[in-house]
């Protein structure tokens, strides 16, 4: 028995080591960096100095103060959370019926439908966003058709590109499978006799859904929501390409701090806040999902 449990630890050693080196350690490094000064040419300044033969720490709370002394970052966080919540809700409203339909269809067609759900993964993420840029472009067929129809009613032309709508459409498009797959995995396991029993005991269509199917699928809803919410919260590629000037999210600012402003400490501060927000959401979500 002892040898067995020992080998169990041995087996989990590589993934543990991997997470330790590539997740825990960098997070701690980031946390530490958020208290340091930026280097003169980017990067980080040394965190200690020799002064009069004495070693003194050169750490600061300035980066954190900078976060709090203006509301611009708070507003960016709120806006990003808003996008993430909106994308998650839209994915749920669109993904739930889809997942339910796949879970209730015949075993044969189920495989095909699932394949169709994951089919977009076969092409590159950026390529798919560029595709949306073409669709939304002012000279694209969609915009021209839309404006043509609007002109019939005397309404002025609109632009789709570089709008919150375009961003949301793309965010939902990219993340929908992450909602559908865990929901499907949950719904597919449901015992259909329970629905028959509920109907037999007097429950109509809607009550069968809200009293049986929905509460039993909450763990799938939670899993899907977390899988959509977190990547959307930190997203920068879609706002970069489709968001325009008003469309930036917190991910863009973090990227900016590291790449353009070369202010690693402040980038670390924003990253830490983002990480904590994400962890808080996951904890809250799993708490909700566990409830009976």
């Amino acid at each position: 028995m002892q040898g067995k449990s020992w080998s169990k630890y041995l087996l989990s050693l590589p993934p543990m080591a991997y997470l330790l080196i590539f997740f825990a350690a960098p997070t701690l490094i980031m946390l530490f960096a958020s208290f340091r000064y930026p280097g003169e040419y980017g990067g980080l300044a040394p965190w200690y100095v020799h002064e009069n033969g004495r070693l003194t720490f050169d750490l600061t709370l300035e980066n954190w103060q900078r976060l709090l002394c203006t509301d611009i970052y708070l507003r960016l966080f709120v806006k990003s959370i808003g996008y993430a919540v909106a994308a998650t809700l839209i994915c749920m409203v669109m993904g739930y019926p889809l997942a339910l339909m796949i879970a209730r269809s015949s075993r044969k067609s189920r495989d095909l439908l699932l394949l169709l759900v994951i089919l977009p993964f076969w092409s590159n993420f950026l390529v798919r966003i560029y595709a949306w840029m073409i669709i939304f472009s002012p000279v694209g067929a969609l915009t021209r058709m839309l404006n043509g129809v609007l002109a019939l009613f005397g309404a002025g032309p609109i632009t789709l590109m570089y709008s919150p709508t375009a961003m949301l459409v793309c965010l939902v498009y990219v993340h929908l499978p992450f909602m559908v797959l865990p929901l499907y995995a949950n719904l597919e396991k449901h015992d259909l006799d329970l629905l028959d029993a509920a109907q037999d005991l007097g429950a109509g269509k809607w009550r069968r859904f809200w009293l049986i199917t929905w509460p039993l699928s909450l763990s799938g809803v939670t899993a899907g929501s977390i899988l959509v919410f977190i990547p959307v919260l930190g997203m920068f590629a879609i706002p970069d390409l489709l968001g325009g000037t008003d469309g930036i999210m917190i991910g863009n600012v973090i990227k900016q701090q590291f790449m353009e402003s070369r202010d690693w400490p402040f980038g670390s501060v924003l990253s830490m806040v983002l990480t904590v927000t994400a962890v808080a959401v996951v904890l809250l979500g799993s708490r909700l999902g566990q409830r009976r």
Partner: protein
Amino acid sequence: MEITELLEIVTVSRHFDAFVALDKVSLHIEAGEFFTLLGPSGCGKTTLLRLIAGFDQPDGGDILLDGKSILAAPPERRPLHTIFQNYALFPHMTVAENIAFPLRMAGIAKKEIQARVAKALEDVRLPDKASHYPDALSGGQKQRIAIARALVNRPRLLLLDEPLSALDAKLREQMQIELINLQKDIGITFVYVTHDQGEALALSHRIAVMDSGKIVQVDVPERLYGFPNSRFVADFIGKCNLLAGRVREQHGDSVIVELDGLGPVHVCRSEAKFAAGSRCALTLRLEKIRIAAAIVNPTDDESHFTGHVHDLLYLGDVTVYIVTLANGLLLEALLANSASGRTNFFEVGDQVEVAWSCDAGHLVLD
């Protein structure tokens, strides 16, 4: 004529592509009856139950409850409930919430729901389980909660789909007794589906034996066992010897049958009329055959043969002896192991005599 018929099934058919699940089935089920649909798997009994519950629609025929067709009503609006094979308790609701479900659906006031749920839990003797979740219950407890849930708003009819099949043998017998008493106490009509003939005999007031989408015989348990109307029923209900033969002559209820390889035997108290020369089978229950080293005082009414013990099955309370008769025919007979200190009366190879009286067997057309 006073109408006591609760449920009337009129020439109901159901096809699944080329497969005929139900072929013009007609049945009358009376109020207060414990009625069983019995048959091997695939005979159509569960299909019929689902049609009554409303989960499926017949291709032809009608189903009447209290004289009115219920086919147009969806399951949620039929005044009847089903006990599912796996109980189908809602896993995310407590026992009390499960039992309250049909009352909630009926829009009954919260206060009354509480009182009736408490009463229902008392009735199934599980009052302390109200706040438990179903997965914390044993099989027998789940069963009782399922019954409590289905009966709490007093349906006109309770449909039970092999409800005891998931329980072990001991518990099953105990639940059978509970079901009988429950049905007697509340007086709600039960329609029970099972493939277990022993269960059907033990529980039912009347049984419909089904085969290949048809009803073969509807009768009380004693008559089904004693007077099966076909080879199928005789073979399906209880253990039975089936001896093939040809009818030689019939005088009133007395028939002379030429059994293949055994010669003529006398069958008395035959209810059916048989044309001379028609093929038939004599059904002989194991316990109705006398078996002895030498039959003492054989009567004129008895048929009487000599054979050897070919095999024996010691079952504890009884031993089944498989006897080879002179022509190689195998006949099963049983003896109760009632004598103290002995296990078997005969051993394999022993010469024995078998006999049965003329009213022991029952003739069916082959």
